[in-house]
């Protein structure tokens, strides 16, 4: 489903040039659950941003479902993104001014789903994430675990083929963290491909495969399953 080869990304500031990704190559198959690990600053988030089409690489190739997307313009990327990719972040990134329900509904609005269908789908996914009773609350009124469950609900409401998660349990205690990992595992079992950045060996155990990075390059790949 995803195949990157010789991917490069540089950050230029006034004084220094950082090589965030250095000829990175790997492949992720449909239905896989992959963890990306590595020390802070090795380029994990940068990689995820490129995989999620939020950022474009400075070199190399990125095939998404066999299509070269490395040189897509903003419009095409946004289009591809909103129909195929869901995101979960360490800091949840819920919109404070929107209720739980409205946060989850937002991706459906952007993909122009009809109102009646939206209601059905939002409620279904909230039910599944066991957060239905909080649907009229605002993010600040929820615990971290609940917030992350809303974020996951929002990531999956459009039935994306790929979920990208950047340290989804980073801000959660272990029990809430486990709950989220459980959710992701379930989603993966239902067929969603998941790529997750994590610092936790514990969380990594839920996945099929770990890609270890150092200074913008892959070092090893452990296959867990």
């Amino acid at each position, binding site marked *: 489903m995803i195949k990157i080869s010789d991917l490069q990304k540089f950050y230029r500031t006034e004084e220094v040039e950082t090589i965030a990704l250095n000829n990175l190559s790997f492949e992720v198959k449909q239905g896989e659950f992959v963890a990306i690990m590595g020390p802070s600053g090795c380029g994990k988030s940068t990689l995820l*941003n490129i995989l*999620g089409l*939020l*950022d474009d690489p400075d070199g190399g190739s990125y095939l998404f479902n066999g299509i070269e997307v490395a040189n897509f313009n*903003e*419009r095409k990327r*946004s289009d591809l*993104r*909103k*129909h195929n990719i869901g*995101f979960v*972040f360490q800091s949840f*990134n*819920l*919109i*404070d*001014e*929107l209720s739980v329900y*409205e946060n989850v509904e*937002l*991706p459906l*609005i*952007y*993909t122009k789903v009809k109102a009646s269908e939206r209601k059905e789908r939002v409620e279904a996914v909230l039910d599944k994430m066991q957060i239905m009773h909080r649907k009229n609350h605002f993010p600040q009124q929820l615990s971290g675990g609940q917030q992350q469950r809303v974020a996951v609900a*929002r990531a999956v409401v*459009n039935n994306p083929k790929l979920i990208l998660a950047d340290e989804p349990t980073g801000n959660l205690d272990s029990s809430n963290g486990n709950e989220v990992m459980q959710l992701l595992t379930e989603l993966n079992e239902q067929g969603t491909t998941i790529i997750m950045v994590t610092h936790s060996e514990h969380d990594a155990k839920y996945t099929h495969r770990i890609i270890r990075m150092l200074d913008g390059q892959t070092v090893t790949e452990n296959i867990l399953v």
Partner: protein
Amino acid sequence: MLKTNIKLALRHLFKRKFNSLLNIVTLTLGASCCVLIYMYVSYQMNFDTYHKNTERLYRLVFELRLENETEYDKGSSIAMVNTLKSAFPLVEKAVVSINRQSFVIDVEANPKRRFREEGNISFTDAEWFDVFTYSWIEGNPNLLNRPGGVILTKKVAEKYFGAGSATGKMISIVGKQFQVAGVVKDPANTDMKGEMYISLSSFADLNPAVGKDYFTSWGYTMSTHDAFILLKDARQKKEVENKLASLVDQHMGAGYSRLFSFQLMPLKDMHFDMRYAGTISKSLIITLSLIGLVILCIAGINYINLVIAQQTRRSAEIGTRKILGGSAKQIFFQFLIESFLVSVIAIISSLVIIILLIPQINSHIFYDEPLQILSYSRLFLFSFSLLAALTLFAGAYPAYILSRLNVSNALKNNVKSSSSLTTRSLIVIQNVVAQVLIIGTIIVLLQVRFLKNTDKGFDRESVVMIPFEKITDQQKQLMNQRLKGIPGVESFSFCYQSPASDTRRGATVKYDVRAEWEPSPARFSIGDSAYFSTFRIPLKYGRTISPSAARPEYVINETMARSLEPKDFSRVVGKKLMAGDLEGIIVGVSGDFNLRSLRSPIEPVVFMEDDFLITNLAVKLSGSETQASLEQVKTVYEDAFSDQLFTYQFVDERIAKLYQRESLQQKFIWIASAVAIAISSMGLLALISLVTVHRTKEIGVRKVLGASVAQITILLSSELMKLIVVSFVIASPISFYLMSNWLRDFAYRIDIHWWVFALSGGAAALIAFATISFQAIKAAIANPVESLRSE
């Protein structure tokens, strides 16, 4: 989608109440200022536009082309109007109104009451009401074609007769009976000052002193004759003017059309042509509109600034939206809707404020010339375009910037704010405008005070003017004796007007044995021999005129004497002078004094006695018991004039009235600069509060490390204070240039001193510093534990 966006926008506004409130208040202030200026400008622009014939109506004006200068005036002779009426096929109608300064009116009601009407009396005939559009409450103008008829406006009719019908009732003017033939509504926006229209054919009856040929001679060309012509076809204006020139040659003397050039001024220019007694110049209207626009711009700039400055707070949201599939276009519209809502609230509040406060604003600020709402629909249309402009310009720009944020940067909160170049230049622009307006306000204020309080060559102190219609020798003698007996009366003079008035009287003069008319005309000042002592005008040579001279005696001012006898101006004493058509002798030279306003320089002046024009008693009071002395003067006055009404006005107030136009400008620039300061202060306040929010953590860390409150306050304020200094440096030369230009219109003006700039710069810096440091100190004294935890 739209509903969701509006709901969301409202939530954003509620969430950041402080910022939203500042945004709304500044936009409301800006919009109110614009609406106010719009009301004034549209009121002025719509003078006399409601007449059905406006497009084909012209006022008769003339240029008096003298060797050295050209005098402009309105008016004509009655004879000319009559000729235009009968002998001009191109002219559909011609009407004239003779304006009289003042009459005392007795109303035969029970009890009998007496009024003085001043400046609102017009002698005309029924055709006037055909040419101009009036709205009739009762009656018709036909009676004006015969002697003894009078038409009143509603205001005057109610004053005389109360609420009931006035038609058929009688009033008496100078003891003569007049019947009210009808009542018309008071037009809101007209330069036709008439409120009492009297039969033209009664004019001679009420003014026995006018010459026999007043109605037949072309020589009686006077500015008090307001003549209007309705052309059959507006394109034939030139033809009529040419024809008039040949008639002038025929009736006034060959070659006169070169001296007197009569022209047809379109009615729609009448209000704006300052040469011919216009009220307000187009350039002033443009300046006012520009000020309104500038105020709107800084309010808009302020809004842009705040929205952009808030972007750090919003960037995570924008990033998230983009990740979830929101396009730049959708985010753009979301922000635009927010701006739209803010603008709607601001516009509605400003309309409500203005409409509710109009009576207060009028009674406190525009008491001379109350503002009126001519048409609500047009006001709403204007507000609607304000709304569109605000949304489009102030809303679209930040929306565009925000919608273009890079997603991954936005998510990381990696967005520079408050100190971006755009924000800084916008702050500078805003403050430049505010400071230019402050400096302008100070200078206009000083100049208006100077105009109102400066007497050039005379002394207004404690002089009251008491009007009457005419005075006989007996009355004069009686009053002379008795006024002298009042200890509180220092001096008095029967005269036409005080110095520093709006008189335009004057004529060309012929001096001594010279055959030619002098190249410059002279103004006339009229009064008796005590005029000089009453107004403390010094005599340089010779003596004042004597009360009972066999032939006219003149005192001329020094300027005139010097132009007549450049070598030794004392030589004029004893020489002959032909002033207009009256030959007399120069008996003295007075010091120069400003006969008219300080807008014009001192002109040559001939002082003379002219019984026909003596309509005021000027009394110089002394001591502290002015009220008591005035009571005594009143008794004398009432004993002398049984048919008059005692009223008085201090010369002070009369002079202040001369500068109404400047006072009005002063008020507008005052309001504009207050609004500009308020807007830019609120802008600074909002910005500094955002800055402190961004830097809460930094402030906390610094305090933990030992920084003092003062150090942190300075740290937070210094960047913005630098911008205030930059604004001052830019604003000073701009305002110097603009205000020097404005001052150039006055013959007498103040100097622009450096301290004006220092004062306004200091004031602006102080206001800015107070605004900024309030927030900065609040942030600096906050508990660092709190601020560290909040991140």
